[in-house]
């Protein structure tokens, strides 16, 4: 009785598609900000001085690669693999931290990605167990 059947979880299984889609969306967002940093860096409000750790083209590459990883993980999360949930949690934490350091460049974009990251973490940690039950 304590073990939920797949019928019981079906109402909540949508959380994983939610997380997967959000991962893909935030990955696309990351890639857009990465390409902008690489190709059109005077688009950003920040000068080189006001960025942390890297310069703007290095941040561009970081965001581009992070975005690719997020999109790949998003598609694999939707197929319900356990490892992809763990990877997705770690990636979402990294994406949040990267956007935090990069916030001076375009604050509103960063805030959007950070909140999507928090939603991803909520969906994956709080409702993650139901996915595993339903997918077996």
């Amino acid at each position: 009785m304590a073990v939920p059947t797949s019928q019981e979880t079906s109402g909540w299984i949508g959380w994983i598609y939610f997380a997967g889609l959000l991962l893909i969306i935030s990955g696309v967002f990351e890639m857009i900000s990465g390409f902008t940093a690489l190709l059109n860096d005077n688009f950003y409000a920040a000068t080189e001085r006001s960025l942390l750790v890297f310069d703007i083209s290095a941040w561009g590459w970081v965001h581009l690669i992070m975005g690719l990883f997020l999109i790949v993980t998003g598609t694999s999360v939707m197929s319900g693999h356990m490892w992809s949930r763990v990877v997705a949690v770690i990636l979402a934490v990294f994406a949040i931290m990267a956007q935090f350091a990069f916030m001076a460049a375009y604050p509103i974009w960063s805030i959007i990605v950070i909140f999507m990251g928090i939603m991803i973490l909520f969906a994956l940690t709080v409702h993650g167990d139901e996915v595993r039950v339903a997918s077996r």
Partner: protein
Amino acid sequence: MKDLRKLASSGCALCHKVALSAIAICFYKDYTEDIHNLRGVVHMATTKPTGWVGWVYFASVMIFIAGSIQLLAGFVALFKDDFYLTTAQGLIAFDYSQWGWIHILLGLCSMAVSWAIATGKFWGRLVGIALAVLNLLSNAAFLPAYPLWSIIVITVDLLVIYALTLHGSEAKA
């Protein structure tokens, strides 16, 4: 004819009685099943780690994020304080290097306690709540330096406090 009617009515009465007792038995059975289910639910809510135990992982990840952001803010305050929007006069209590050390200390403690929370330690939850409150207060005081950072850390800390106070007890098992 009269006998027949009597027989019918008595038969009916018998039927009625049987039906009633059958219903009573059914209800009794349902009732006991209900009790059983209820007991199971109570048992599940207090001791069994259900799907909701995820709240604890959520709290642990959130306090880790809050801690790492604090760490970043601390290092920036120590090494690159012209990055911040205000001068030291705009801060409430300490100067930038003191704030830097406070943030680094709180950040490291938060990141460390996230492990204790994830493994379901009771003291981890208490220390986690205390650290989240301290983070929140320090960021409220540090707000003029970089308002957006502080607002996000405050939001994350509120989520930590919510998850640990309302859903914390599910983590014990």
